[in-house]
């Protein structure tokens, strides 16, 4: 791996970490657990489009691990790992669908993230009724996903090409 790619990934990972922290400072006060802005996904979508799925995966996994070490526990690690892996796989697949933009891809990623977390919560808590939280989570995923996707599109367009040419 070229040093420049490594350094860029590390920098973006640090950025994603800061966004995770910023997000935790402003919890969206809603009665549904799991509703959040998804700010770190901004970095992941950017990396996915400009640096490829491999870079996005490395950034995402390191972020999840570090967040769990700094702020979380084994359960929060499971939640975010499931969400991060499944949403990135789906986004990487949808990115190749012609006609889909970052908005759609990011929405799919956000929604997949929520579905994965509900799934893990159902397994950890052993309660299938948690699925009742899915509809409001899907809607919040669409709203935050569109916002993140549109901002990501601007970043992908405007951040100089040379930053991500390896």
């Amino acid at each position, binding site marked *: 791996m070229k040093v420049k790619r490594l350094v860029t990934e590390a920098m973006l990972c640090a950025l994603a970490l800061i966004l995770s922290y910023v997000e935790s400072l402003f919890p969206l006060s809603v009665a*549904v657990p799991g509703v959040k802005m998804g700010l770190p996904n901004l970095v992941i979508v950017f990396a996915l489009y400009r640096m490829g799925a491999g870079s996005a995966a490395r950034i995402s996994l390191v972020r999840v691990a570090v967040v769990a070490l700094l702020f979380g526990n084994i359960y929060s690690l499971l939640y975010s790992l499931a969400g991060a892996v499944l949403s990135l796989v789906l986004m990487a697949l949808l990115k190749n669908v012609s006609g889909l*933009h970052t908005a*759609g891809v990011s929405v799919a990623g956000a929604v997949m993230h929520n579905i994965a977390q509900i799934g893990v*919560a159902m397994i950890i808590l052993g*309660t299938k*009724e948690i699925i009742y939280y*899915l*509809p409001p989570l*899907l809607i919040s995923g*669409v709203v935050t996903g569109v916002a993140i996707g549109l901002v990501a599109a601007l970043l992908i367009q405007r951040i100089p090409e040379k930053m991500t040419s390896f």
Partner: protein
Amino acid sequence: MNRLKDYRKDLFLILGILIGAGLLAGAFALAKKPGAYVRVEQNGKLLAVWKLEEDRREVFPSESGETEKTEDEEAGNVLVIENGSVHMELASCPDKLCVKQGTKSKVGETIVCLPHKLVVTVISAEEAEELLP
């Protein structure tokens, strides 16, 4: 911004998800029946089954046994059953999502406190019979 027409596929995807969410919500709402009992579980372990008809106020220490201070007593969560429905009155966790989840009375409705792994579920009389000795 590009023309909206270019975003046709994205809009379809979003519309599909929203319709899916609506259908799910509708199906869940239709499937709900008035509940008879409240089941309380912590970390997957059954703690209690109580009648919705009988008013009560119960204190649950958080799972680790630590007794964090809530507003008026030392506890993890304070659960209240009154007027045939259940709600979480107090919680010692920072986000208090379980308190915000409000009042529940239909079968299958839950109050979840993730930090304390406490799950409160409204259940039917049949379900309660299986759990009660």
